[in-house]
């Protein structure tokens, strides 16, 4: 079953995602300077050898862009994957256990949902300081309630399916039912959800960076670049716009890809 080349949207999304990820992964090899090397005038305009100019301290923007993707993409992906793993586990177990545990989990998710993402971020970062693991954890926590709810409802849906009843009737061990019968049937929609989460995760990290709650200097990071240079947006726009554009393209690509895949999968399932 080759899904990829058929859907135009999937193709476009995949292309964008792959492009940005390539920049992020291969960028460090191509970067002319180190991340903390100050080689030009502060907020220096684009010049030969520095096509994107210099940042607020005089580091080469191109180098920092090339070096800073790995960290952002990794942070974004880690946060989304963490949210997926934790949320799916909690949601599935809640649905499986049912009764009190299920209601408690739902209630917790509702409470967590009551905090807008940035408010959670604000509280968490002020409590625990700026660090990459914390950014990952915070973003993951903000994405958690939605994932838990999705995983829970998907699991409930699958549990109502008769093959699960059949497995129970035959007396299969619980673990087998959960992992072999249910899990494979909730993975596809959860993976589509992962795409959406990657988008939110990237957007949230961009907003956190703007407010100064992102990754700490001097690491090269697209989000951090946004924070460092946003004061100079009108002086040396490249130092902000290029990382912002890359974050946005990454979000866009992943989102397009995920939605396209979701549609394709839905269509394939329907055709069955």
């Amino acid at each position, binding site marked *: 079953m080759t899904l990829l080349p058929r859907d135009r949207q999937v193709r476009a999304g995949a292309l964008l995602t792959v492009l940005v990820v390539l920049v992020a992964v291969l960028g460090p090899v191509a970067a002319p300077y180190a991340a903390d090397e100050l080689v030009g005038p502060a907020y220096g305009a684009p010049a030969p050898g520095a096509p994107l100019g210099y940042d*607020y301290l005089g580091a080469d923007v191109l180098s920092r862009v090339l070096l800073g993707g790995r960290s952002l993409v990794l942070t974004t992906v880690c946060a989304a994957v963490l949210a997926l793993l934790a949320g799916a586990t909690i949601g599935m177990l809640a649905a499986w256990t049912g009764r009190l545990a299920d209601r408690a989990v739902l209630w917790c998710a509702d409470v967590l949902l009551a905090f807008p993402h940035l408010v959670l971020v604000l509280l968490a970062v002020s409590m625990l300081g700026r660090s990459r693991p914390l950014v990952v954890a915070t973003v993951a926590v903000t994405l958690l309630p939605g994932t838990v709810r999705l995983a829970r409802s998907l699991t409930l849906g699958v549990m109502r399916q008769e093959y699960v009843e059949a497995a129970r009737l035959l007396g299969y061990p619980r673990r087998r039912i959960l992992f072999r019968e249910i899990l494979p049937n909730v993975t596809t929609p959860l993976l589509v959800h992962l795409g959406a989460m990657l988008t939110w995760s990237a957007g949230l990290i961009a907003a956190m960076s703007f407010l100064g709650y992102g990754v700490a200097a001097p690491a090269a990071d697209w989000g951090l670049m946004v924070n460092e240079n946003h004061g100079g947006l009108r002086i040396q726009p490249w130092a902000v716009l290029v990382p912002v554009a890359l974050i946005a393209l990454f979000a866009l690509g992943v989102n397009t890809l995920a939605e396209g895949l979701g549609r394709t999968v839905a269509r394939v399932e329907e055709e069955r």
Partner: protein
Amino acid sequence: MNSQITRRGFLGGAVLLGGAALVGCAPDAQRQQAASPGTLQDGTPRRGGRLRLGVVDGDRAGTLDAHKPLTIGSIIRGFAVYSKLWEWNAEMNWSPALAEETEANADATTWTVRLRQGLEFHNGKTITADDVIFSARRLTDPALGSPWAALLFTLDRERIDKVDERTVRFHFKDGKGFVPFPDTFTNFGAIVPVDYDPAKPVGAGPYKLKEFTPGQRSLFTRFENYFKDGQPYADELEIIDFQDEASRIAALQAGQISLANGIGADQVRLLQGDPRVSVVVSQTSNWQSFDLNLSKEPFRDERVREAFRLLTDRKELVERALSGHGRVANDLYSPQDPTFDRSIAQRPYDVERAKALLKAAGQENLQVELVSGEGGDAAALVFAAQAKKAGVTVTVKKVDAATFNGPRRLDWTMSTGGLLTESFLSSALHLDAPVSAANKTHFSDPRFTELFEQAITQPDVARRAELVHEMQRIQHAKGGLVIWGFNDALDAVSTGVGGVVPEHTQFATWRFEKLWVKETT
């Protein structure tokens, strides 16, 4: 003032110091003019209109309490509402304000101050000696809990004598002398009436408070009986809080505010091309430093300290962290003080010697964490890049203001620092004197202590200069402060406002009595 105010000052001013273009190192006077072509010839002041000053006050909402202003915004509002016995002149030395005469005795153990005649508060009440005594006692009242009381720790608040209706005499604890009394009393020594209520603040400043919305804005009207004749000029003054520098600059360009104090150096370039705004550059002795903690390794070793000073490329720091709007410094503060020793040679930038010293100290491949408070991270990052060249790995850890000045503030091994311009003695009182309130470097030297004890009771400038010179040599050789530069105060002013003149302080836009609104606006 102390390091917190300094930090706040930067929040208002240099927080967003980033880099601008490397503007070669032009002579000071030339730079000063180049930046502000329009503001120097303003014509005759006229009355009327509303001044609008935008401040970035960090995260603070601020208060109006005369003796407890905690943020730059509150201090600026204090400049509008309150007058003090003395004020800072353009050279950052004290000169009489409400005081008509100030007299210290020979060993500075008593200070006698006489008020001008016919002074009035906003509510029409005459200012008397009782008000001065009340104000001094209130500032130092432990029950008020003003952080600024610490600087006046030696003032004997039980012995403030009323000589007559207009004259007050101050004494100090244990009969000791205290030379920097006006220096330490001027900033926060607002004179308020004995029935002062901070909820309805009354002072003798150029403007009366009309409304105050914390964290948002405050509105003032002209005080007609201000002690300086004919001043202030504008009918109203509005001080507006911004949370974001870019937003403040945009508001200035859009004509929503007419003044922005202490703008980020990186914003200058943006404003230079704008005919509606000019930037007033004031060369100050506000300094910037890296503070090395002498109580911790590796800085217990003098060689390591010397190495750190040598590997600091001050010129580059000024260019990058201050966008060129400043001067290099020689690890010593208060160059404006008449007692400053100008004969101490500028410490060079010498990576090779730094390396050699580190090697001798057995500290090759040294790793240090540099904690930066808000506004200090640009300098810290530039320094980290410089240290790398000498084989030192500096990890910059940026923490928020509350953490930076929190309970661990004296524990940082290395941290960013700095202070606004103050006299030598009052700076030392903050930092490295034996009684200092925030000795981040844990500097302590018996000879230095001895000299300080003498200097603080020596009102005679020439004799005090000798003592200070020796103290400065000790600081220069053994101290923990790597003072790398003095930053300019940058104020952005709409062409519609007159009276903003460059000086050697950060007060150019705070002297509200002198500012006026031009007809065109």
